[in-house]
């Protein structure tokens, strides 16, 4: 039985529909990313799971119990917001203790032990007496995480936890959050609009767009077998072209490029070469003038003496082609 069951959730704000009939199942211990463009309803869904917002219809089950009408305080989750919402008038440990102090039956020393444990987990124990404003962005983020896990919640909700950080710190924290999540084995729902974050961290990804779920699957499934053009386009780069009245799609790295004229599917005009270190991205146009881009190793590119305004021959391997019914992309 799934740990979190979200069944046919509908949420309207005034007349605008923020969520239309969303259903997702989340297994115990997995990290699920909700991924989608801005305004598609990710935060709203998270807040409904948290009980901070009430759906217009639909149900939420937590660990098999109907939690649809349960207030947030009774749902036993930890939450981290994009802004972290650390209490600036309390120290790091004060922030963590704020929730623990609610547990009236707990001895004071136990609360302290628990708080310290949580801070050690995120490697902030030495900084426990500092105030949030004395911490770097990454440390603030970890404080928020420590505060969220200190109460041993049964699941964790993260709303774009890394988006306020710069790229380097973000990379590092991705790994750390994932490691902590694994070591605690805690079911986690994380909202993000960063596809790389979703692909690297998630067990499964829920792709949303315009208030609906477009696809649910493992990162590999989502990347290799996007079930519709939106997902294909939103995650990674995808080439689309028309063939036999069908829309075909193929990833840049799956297109085979040669100089030789034999056995090719298309001739393409090279518009620009983009050197990316180990890889080189080739931007070109197909005879029907549609855009195409291809990734080849930089080594191969120099061997082939590719140059701008030249012509190359492309092969689209059948096993990597995805066909969609003829829809506009």
């Amino acid at each position, binding site marked *: 039985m799934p740990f979190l069951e979200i069944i046919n959730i509908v949420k309207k704000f005034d007349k605008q529909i923020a969520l239309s009939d969303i259903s997702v199942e989340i297994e115990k211990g997995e990290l699920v990313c909700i991924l989608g463009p801005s305004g598609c309803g990710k935060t709203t869904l998270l807040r409904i799971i*948290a009980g901070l917002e009430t759906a217009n219809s639909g149900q939420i089950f937590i660990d098999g119990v109907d939690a649809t*009408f349960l207030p947030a305080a009774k749902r036993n989750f930890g939450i981290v917001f994009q802004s972290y919402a650390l209490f600036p008038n309390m120290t790091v440990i004060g922030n963590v203790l704020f929730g623990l102090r609610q547990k009236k039956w707990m001895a004071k020393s136990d609360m302290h032990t628990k708080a310290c444990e949580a801070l050690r987990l995120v490697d902030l124990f030495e900084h426990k007496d500092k105030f949030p404003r004395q911490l770097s962005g990454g440390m603030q983020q970890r404080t928020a995480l420590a505060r969220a896990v200190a109460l041993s919640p049964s699941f964790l909700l993260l709303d774009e936890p890394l988006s306020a950080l710069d790229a380097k710190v973000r990379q590092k924290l991705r790994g750390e959050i994932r490691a902590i999540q694994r070591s605690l084995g805690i079911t986690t729902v994380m909202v993000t609009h960063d596809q790389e974050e979703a692909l690297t961290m998630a067990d499964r990804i829920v792709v949303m767009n315009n208030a609906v779920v477009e696809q649910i699957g493992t990162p590999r499934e989502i990347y290799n077998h996007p079930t519709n053009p939106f997902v294909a386009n939103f995650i990674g780069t995808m080439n689309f072209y028309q063939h036999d009245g069908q829309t075909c799609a193929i990833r840049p790295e799956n297109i085979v490029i040669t100089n030789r004229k034999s056995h090719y599917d298309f001739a393409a005009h090279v518009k620009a070469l983009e050197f990316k270190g180990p890889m080189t991205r080739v931007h070109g146009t197909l005879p029907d003038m549609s855009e195409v881009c291809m990734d080849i190793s930089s080594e191969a590119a120099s061997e082939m003496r590719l140059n701008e305004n030249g012509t190359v021959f492309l092969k689209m391997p059948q096993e990597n082609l995805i066909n969609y019914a003829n829809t506009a992309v």
Partner: protein
Amino acid sequence: MNSSIRRWFSRFRFWQFVVLVAVLLAFTVILVFPLFSLFSKAFLNNAGEFAGFDNYSKYFSTPSLSASIKNTLDIALWSTLFSGVLGFLYAFALARTRIRWKTFFKYTAMIPIFIPTVVHALGLVYMFGRQGVLTRAGLFPFELYGRLGIIISEAIFTFPQAFLMFFVALEFADGRLYEAADSMGASPLEKLTRITLPEIKYTIINAFFVCFTLAFTDFGAPKVIGGSFNVLATDIYKQVAGQFNFNMGAVVGTLLLIPALASFTVDRLVSSKNSGTISAKATKLMIAKSIKRDAFFFCLCSLVTAFFLFLIAMLFVGGLSEHYPYNLSLTLKNFLFNRSAGGVDSYFNSLKMAFLSAAFGTAFVFVYAYMMEKINGFGALRKYGKLLSVLPLALPGMVIGISFIFFFNDRGNPLNFIYGTIAILVVSNILHYFSVPFFTASGCLKKLDKEYESVASSMNVPQWKTFLRVSVPLSLPAILEIFMYLFVNAMVTVSAVVFLYNAKFKIAAVAIIHMEEAGNFGQAAAMSLLILAINVLVRILYEAAIKIIKEKRL
């Protein structure tokens, strides 16, 4: 249970609802109900029968009464003109020139805020009255009592308001506009009329209405210095406190509401078009060097400041001398106030009243603002609450005073017991000065992260605890500002409380009026000094506290 009912219940926060209803109910009782009594009185005759517009036609057909309207318009217009122009120039000097001593000038501009309007009038008497220093020196050959005195007093009273509004508006300037104008060779006058004035045109309108309304409805200055020159505020007092003609008093009360209503209407019309906020790309204005300009504005600021300081100095002279102007030897005997005017007790009564008004008022305003800003749902109730929150801006103290009499002095009212106690004074002050602190509080709460409550509720922390442990400490500067504002205003106010104080519980600002009426100018000046002292002290404590908080947070 039906699912949609359960959904409603799961969203329903019982304690939020209780607190919200409680504050709204309290505010309705002290704001809406008394106003309702006022209006109903205006349309009843003395026997309590419905009289339609009879009271109004009687009012307008009594020449001595209807002349007051003309008088009031007259003095309000002139004083607004003076304080508006001076306030603008003064603000311009501080915001757009390179003169020295800006901080000093900024504080001296606030002097009038710290003393009751009756004291402005008193200071004027010392300067320009029949025995005034300047009159005796032959420098003021005019009659102060009457129209002229009121106009000058109201101009002093409204100057800080005009100055502050213009200062805020002028401080923000889009430097790009001025650079562009410079590159086209525009003259300073062209820059003023083509850029500066259009940029602040809404402030001009607002400042006009604020000052006009204050001058139109002020009671203290006309009472002390008006002589036989009648205005609406003194009429209302005579009708109610002198002749017990409540219905006529109510009629005048409704007339006092007119400028504020006009200002609301204009504000609505104007603000719907006013989206000319400064864009994010605005650059800071570089103030060019200009010795001539700075010299002019420095002289202007010095003159205004000198005038205020002179006025305060006269209070010292009057308060500390044996018998001005005949015997100027130093004495403290004026501080032994006559018992008939309330004695020194009236000062302690005022302190007590101001402290209670500030303490209860701050708590009430802050909780009210919190309920408007930090809870979800209850849309209709919160809309009603927001509507009420701006209404006190339109209510002159005189109107609050008489409507409180009408409402609370009614034997049938279960709240009748607060009539004649300190409680009604405190309540009237909280109502009178509600709106500005409310804007301060809600502005501050809006800036707090809106997820604090979400995080806390995820940790099962009750909202009242988050309120006390997070929202209140983080809003401490705003809370102190509100406290100070309420305290200072409660110390200086006359208009509402003049109807409501009890003979056994006199208060200082009213005592000053009585001392002046009895010709005890020395004591009046001494009492004014005591009020000034406590207000300046409170202000200093406030500034010190803010400084400590800021240092701790850096």
